[in-house]
């Protein structure tokens, strides 16, 4: 077949892709014109990642055609796709931390005779051309997330990518870095390259992109030729297929009760031994939701771990219900009334290979005993109770839990944590990656818990969620709480400035 339409850099035609038990793509289309930034939109599970993985040679489609720059392609491996000019920048960077920027960039495509000075010079030229500052001689482990992303992009450019795929690129960036990224992507588009931009952040999509394709349940449901003509709510409606927003109503005002969680002068180190938390003082009271705002990587993860006993503070005290728990084990803290929904659901909160029943009793297995023995009937009954009460959709309870969808995993996890009426709930990114129904279900549980007197510490990257749910907002920047704000009266610009470390005195 001859090229039926030359006016595209990428044309994914009628892509079908099935995985065991799941249809990821059911005839989805994606057509990207040269020299444009094209947004690929859709909820989690809509098929975005599968589509770009087909384009990147990671998956072979079960049906459909892949066209790149006017030629039909049959990629057998990512190497084939790279050779055809497709550059992929994944959410999790694939860099070797101990190698330098230049070494990472040429890795896999290095000239036979490696003259580092020459390579570094060419890398420097490339980064200057697109306004992406990166010192080629620095080892990658010293770089910030934003800098690492630049290295990934430069790596694709080094390999002469004419199509650059960016998966959720701004998730790890500060607002300033995100703006820089937008400018760099525009420079590449002006240069005739195409960018496929996957994101949930619609405001950025509108700011950065020219066109958009919206996927829903593995099908293309809309294409937008000019993003300047649409408004945000319209796009959101296209994505979710209805106008429901996903954010629950702001809970009614409640009088805050007694203090249930406090941190007094807490400092802690991160995994690399660098300061992650610096002199944190905060309290959470009964009947309130305290939101932690901040760009990810500013100490939120370590904060949750210190509170729950998974990381030792170097200084300071943690109390739950006025009792010092600084040296208590995670289990003891839970028994005192501290529940925790960790950011890493599968791997920390849940054991992927173990069954639904086994996972539901992680907190309460000691209560399901008679003598030495676990009473299996009690365990199953407990699990069934959680499944019913929290609307978990699951297959057989003895199958490994890894088979559940994200939303159902989170329902079960949250249900398990709430089963014994905690006094405090620490929820880290509780709605990340969930579909609309999942988000709404989790958020309404948080609000219900607040009404019942639980103090909730909500750590989230979703500012809308924090604004909708929180009674107070604490902004974290570089391991410190830099300001406390009232969500309903603070302009977003002020919050943004605080998140970027520009605190007004």
């Amino acid at each position, binding site marked *: 077949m001859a090229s039926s339409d030359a006016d595209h850099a990428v044309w994914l035609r009628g892509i079908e892709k099935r995985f*065991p*038990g799941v249809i990821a793509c059911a005839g989805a289309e994606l057509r990207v014109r040269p020299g444009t930034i094209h947004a690929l939109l859709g909820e989690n599970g809509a098929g975005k990642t599968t589509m770009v993985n087909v384009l990147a040679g*990671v*998956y*072979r*489609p*079960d*049906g*459909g055609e892949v066209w790149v720059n006017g030629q039909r392609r*049959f990629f*057998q491996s990512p190497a084939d796709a790279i050779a055809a000019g497709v550059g992929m920048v994944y959410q999790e960077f694939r860099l070797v931390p101990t190698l330098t920027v230049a070494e990472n960039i040429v890795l896999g495509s290095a000239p036979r005779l490696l003259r580092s000075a020459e390579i570094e010079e060419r890398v420097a030229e490339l980064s200057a051309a697109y306004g992406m500052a990166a010192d080629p001689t620095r080892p990658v482990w010293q770089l910030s997330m934003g800098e690492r992303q630049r290295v990934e992009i430069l790596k694709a450019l080094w390999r002469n990518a004419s199509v650059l795929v960016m998966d959720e690129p701004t998730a790890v960036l500060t607002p300033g870095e995100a703006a820089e990224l937008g400018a760099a992507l525009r420079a590449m588009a002006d240069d005739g390259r195409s960018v496929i931009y996957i994101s949930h952040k619609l405001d950025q999509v509108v700011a950065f992109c020219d066109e958009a394709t919206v996927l829903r349940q593995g099908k293309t449901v809309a294409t937008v030729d000019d993003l300047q003509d649409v408004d945000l709510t319209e796009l959101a409606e296209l994505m979710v297929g209805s106008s429901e927003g996903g954010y629950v109503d702001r809970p009614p005002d409640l009088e805050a009760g007694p203090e249930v969680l406090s941190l007094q002068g807490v400092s802690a180190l991160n995994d690399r031994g660098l300061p992650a938390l610096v002199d944190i003082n905060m309290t959470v009271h009964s009947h309130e939701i305290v939101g932690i705002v901040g760009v990810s990587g500013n100490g939120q993860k370590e904060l949750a771990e210190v509170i*729950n*006993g*998974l*990381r*030792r503070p170097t200084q300071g005290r943690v109390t739950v219900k006025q009792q010092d728990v600084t*040296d*208590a*084990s*995670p*289990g*003891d803290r*839970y028994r005192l009334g501290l529940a*925790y929904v*960790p950011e*890493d659901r599968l*791997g*920390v*909160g*849940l*054991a*992927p*290979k*173990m069954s639904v029943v*086994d996972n539901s*009793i*992680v*907190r309460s*297995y*000691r209560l*399901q*005993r008679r003598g*030495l*023995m*676990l009473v*299996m009937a009690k365990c199953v009954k407990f699990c069934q109770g959680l499944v019913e009460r929290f609307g978990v959709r699951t297959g057989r309870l003895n*199958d*490994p839990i*890894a088979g559940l969808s994200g939303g159902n995993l989170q329902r079960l996890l949250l249900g398990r944590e709430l089963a014994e009426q905690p006094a405090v709930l620490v929820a880290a990114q509780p709605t990340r990656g969930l579909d609309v129904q999942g988000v709404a279900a989790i958020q309404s549980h948080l609000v219900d818990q607040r009404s019942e007197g639980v103090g909730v510490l909500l750590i989230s990257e979703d500012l809308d969620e924090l604004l909708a749910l929180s009674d107070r907002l604490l902004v974290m920047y570089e391991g410190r709480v830099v300001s406390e704000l009232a969500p309903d009266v603070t302009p977003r610009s002020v919050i943004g400035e605080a998140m970027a470390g520009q605190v007004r005195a």
Partner: protein
Amino acid sequence: MIRPVLARRERVWPATQAFAFLVGIAVALVLGLILLWTSGHNPAEVYERMFDSAFMGTDSLSRTLERATPLALTGLSVAVAGSMGLWNIGAEGQMMAGAIVATGVAMMADGLSGPLLIALMIVAGVAGGMVLMLGPALARSHLGVSEIITTLMLVYVAIRVVEWLETGPWKDPESFGFAVIEPVPEQAALPGLFGRANIGMLIALGLLIVFWLAVSRTAWGYELRLAGSSPNTARYAGVSLRRKILTALLLSGGIAGLAGAVQLTGSAARLESGLSNGYGFAGIIVAALALMRPSGVAVVAFVFGAVQVGGQSIQTLGVSSAISDILQAMILFGALVAAVFFNYRIRWTGPAADSSGDEPEEPGEPDEPDEPDEPEEPEPAEDAA
């Protein structure tokens, strides 16, 4: 270019591993047939002799059970560590250590009555295995040192200690100059059941059942499974990884030591450097084939016992007994390969077949339920508490 890729099967039969084991036995028999044929033997005659000597008649069966007993115990030893994601490669050495301490007890307390002495020797055996495991266990739990290396190296230490005892301090003065240790007292022989089978077999069977109950039906076993399958979740649940690693490894060493004491009181006349006889190493294969499950350990140990008895019996036909080692290894290889094909299928992909290709997948993906539970390296334990 057309090339094969492995694609995971959407539906995997139940009891895959049992089929894989049968395939492994078939593969071993076919390869063994070729081996016997090319070395000038009559395979039919050899196999018939092996089968008769292992299964036909109570005497044959009792020999198979006698052999299966230490295999079941060492297999269980490896499986206990394996269910925590740890590899005890040194059951061979812990068996020896158990036999050494049991012999020492027998020497000091040879005036005791039979049952009491046997009980004491078995306890001593457990203690001996644990002592040899103590170093590797502590190094693993507190420093993250690989137990695979340390347990293996101590095997040779334990065997050399026996050789030293044989030629030195424990040399039997009435041995006419032979470097042997004096036999264990007569009353310390494990009571027989029938033929050559003794109550060691019941001890092994009992322990398998206890272990199965403990792992699948107790809070302790639940913690063990949690720590083995997802260390971070265990920490989150307040389970001390250090303690769990220590317990699993010490138990594993203790069971291997018990195997040594059972072997000493049940089958061997005296402590000698050949007492462990490769049972500890064979136990690794047993546990791996059994996917660390006690029921599987019992079945595989029985089959391996038969193969070993058969291998012994064919020496009178002029065939080396090494054939039984080869058959055991072939069973493992055959079963491992079969397990891959039960869980995955081959697809030929290329430009022509592109539209129906599946993504290539490495066998042994972590979320594969029926895959042999590849013990994963737990993180070096750092308990916050």
